[in-house]
C-alpha cells in the first residue's frame, strides 16, 4: 500500500531540535534520580545482611541499564540462531 499524499506540515519530531531537547530532558532526569541516592537514605527491601548490594549508590539504575544492554546482546545472538524467512511455515 502506497502512502496517499505526503503532507507538507511539519510535525513535532520532524525538527531534530525537538528530538534533542527530549533526549536531554531524559539525561537530566536520569542524573537527578540517581543523585537523590546521595542525599536520601533508601530503605533496604530485604532485611539487613541478606543482600547488601541493593543499598549501593545507583544499584537500581545500573541494574536497569545493564538489563537493556544484556537483553539486546542475547537477543541478537538468538536472532542468529532462530531467525527464519517470513514464509518459513507456509
Amino acid at each position: 500500500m502506497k502512502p496517499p499524499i505526503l503532507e507538507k506540515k511539519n510535525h513535532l519530531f520532524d525538527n531534530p531540535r525537538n528530538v534533542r531537547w527530549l533526549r536531554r530532558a531524559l539525561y537530566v532526569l536520569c542524573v537527578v534520580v540517581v543523585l537523590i541516592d546521595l542525599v536520601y537514605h533508601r530503605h533496604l527491601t530485604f532485611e539487613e545482611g541478606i543482600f547488601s548490594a541493593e543499598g549501593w549508590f545507583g544499584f537500581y539504575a545500573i541494574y536497569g541499564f545493564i538489563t537493556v544492554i544484556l537483553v539486546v546482546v542475547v537477543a541478537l545472538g538468538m536472532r542468529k540462531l532462530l531467525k527464519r524467512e517470513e514464509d518459513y511455515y507456509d
Partner: protein
Amino acid sequence: MIEPLHPALILLLGSLLLPLLPNGYRKVLLLALPVASFVNLLGIEAGMQWTISIAGFDVEVLRTDKLSLLFGYLFHLAAFLSALFAFGLQDRVQQTSGLMYAGAAVLAVFAGDLIVLFVGWELLALTSVFQIWARRNERARGAGMRYLMIHISSGLLLLVGTAFHYEQTGSLGFGPMALDDPAAYLILLAFGIKCAFPLLHNWLIDAYPEATPTGAVFLSAFTTKVAIYALARSFAGVEALIWVGAIMTVFPIFYAMIENDLRRVLGYSMINQLGFMVVGVGLGEGMGVNGAVAHAFTDVIFKGLLFMSMGAVLFRTGHINGSDLGGLYKSMPITTGLCIVGAASISAFPLFSGFVSKTMVMAAAVDQGHLWVWLILLFASAGVLHHAGIKIPFFAFFAHDSGIRCKEAPSHMLVAMGLAAALCVLIGSFPQFLYSLLPYPVTYEPYTTTHILTQLQLLLFSVLGFTLLQVFKLYPPELRAINLDSDFLYRRLFPGVVQTMVRIGTPVRDQVSIATKRWLNHLIIIIKRLHTPDGILSRTWLTNSSVQIILLLLSIYLLYYLLQRLP
C-alpha cells in the same frame, strides 16, 4: 427484591439472540448485555452456593467468594470495553462468539465443581477460536485450528484429571488440591496449557496475532486469566510455580526484542506478565495471591489497551509489522497518547496501574526471602519496559517515518481506549479501591519514597539504555522475519520426523513386499508341484505301500514301548 440470575446466563443466552437481530440493534445489544449482566452480578454476594440436579447428579453451578467475584467484575469490565472497541463491527460471527466467550469465562470462574469448570473451559476454546477464524485467511485458519486442538486437549486433560480425582477422593470440588497424585498433575497440566507455561506457551504467540483487530482484544482478556484464577483456586502456594513463573517472566523478553509483528510482541509480553501472576500464586495465600489477582486485574486493562491501540493501527493501516510502521503519531495522535498510557502502565511507572500490582508480587517474594526470584523479577520489570513500554509505541508511532498517512482511529475505538487509559491511571493513583476487592486483607503500601525512587531509577535508566543504543545506532533493526519458538516442534520437527520416516520407510516397505511376493511365489510353485494331478501328494498309492507304511509305524511304536520297559 428480584432474585439475581446466574451471572453467566445473561451473556450466554443473550449472545444467542444476537445473530437474529438486524445490524443496528445487534450493536446496541452487544454493549447493553455486559452492562445488564453486571447489574445482575451486583446482586450476587460472597458465600453463595447454587446446586442443580441433572439426571440425579448434583452440579454446583455457582460458588462465590471474594476471589471469584473479583474475576467476575473484571470479565464484565473487559467484555464491555472489548464490545465498545468492536462497536463498528458488522460481523455476526465475531459479535456472537465474542459475547459468548465472555460468558464462558464468567461460567468458569463461578464454577463450584470441576464439571462446571470443564464445561466453561471447553466453551472458552470453542467460542474464542472464531475471533481468529473471522480474519478469514489461510494463515488464520491454520493458526485457529492449532489453537483449537491445543485448547481442546487441555480440556480433555482436565476431564481425565477430574475423573481420576473423583475416583480417588469421591469429590468433584473445585478447591485447593495437593500435588500428590496423578489426578492433580493432570489438572495442573490442563491449567498450565491455558496459562501458557514455558514450552506449553506457543499457542498464544501463534494464534493471538492472527486474530482480527478486535478479536485480539477479546482474546487477551479471558482465557489466560481464567487459568490464573484456576491456579489461584487450586494450587496456591505450590513452590514449583514460583520458578515456573520466574522462567515465564524472563524468556519472552528476548523473543519480544527480536519480534517484528507488534501484536506478537504483545503476546510475548503477555506471557511475561502471566509469569508475575504465576509467581504470585506460587508464593501462596496472603500477599502472593493478592498480588497475582491484582496484577491479573490491571493486566486485563492495560494489555487490552495495548492490544486495542495496535488493533486500531492494523485496522487503519493494514500493517502490524514494526518494519512497515513508524511516524504514525502524525496521523493518529490520540491513539499514540493512549498507547503510551498503556505502555507506562505495563512498565509500572508510579501513578500507573502496573506500579500498584506488579510490585505487590515482588514484595511478596521479598517477604518470603526469595532473593533470586526477586532479582529475576527486577530484571523482568526492566525488560518489559523495554519491549512493551518502549518498543511498541516507538516502532508504531515514532521511529523512521514510514510515509503512511491514515485517519485517526474511529471514535468508538478511541472511547474504549480512553476508558481503559483512564482506569489505568485511576487504579494506579488510587489503588485502595482495587485493594478492597482482593481476597485477603491488604497491608501493602506501594507509594513509599524508597519504592518510587528505586522504580524510577530502574525504569529511567532502562529508557536511557534504549536511547543510547538508538543514538549510537547499535539497536538491532526490525527485520522481516520470524523466529523459531516451541511451535517448531509441532509445526516442523514432528511432521518432519514423520515425513523422514515415510521417506526412509517407503523403499524398505517396497523391498520387503517384493521379497515377500517372491517368496510366496516360490511357495505356490512348490505346493503346485506337490498337489497337481501328477504331484507326489496327489498320486494314487498302492494298498501294498500303505500296508508297508503302517507296518513301519507299528514297529517303531513297538520298539519305543519295549525301550520304555527296560529296567
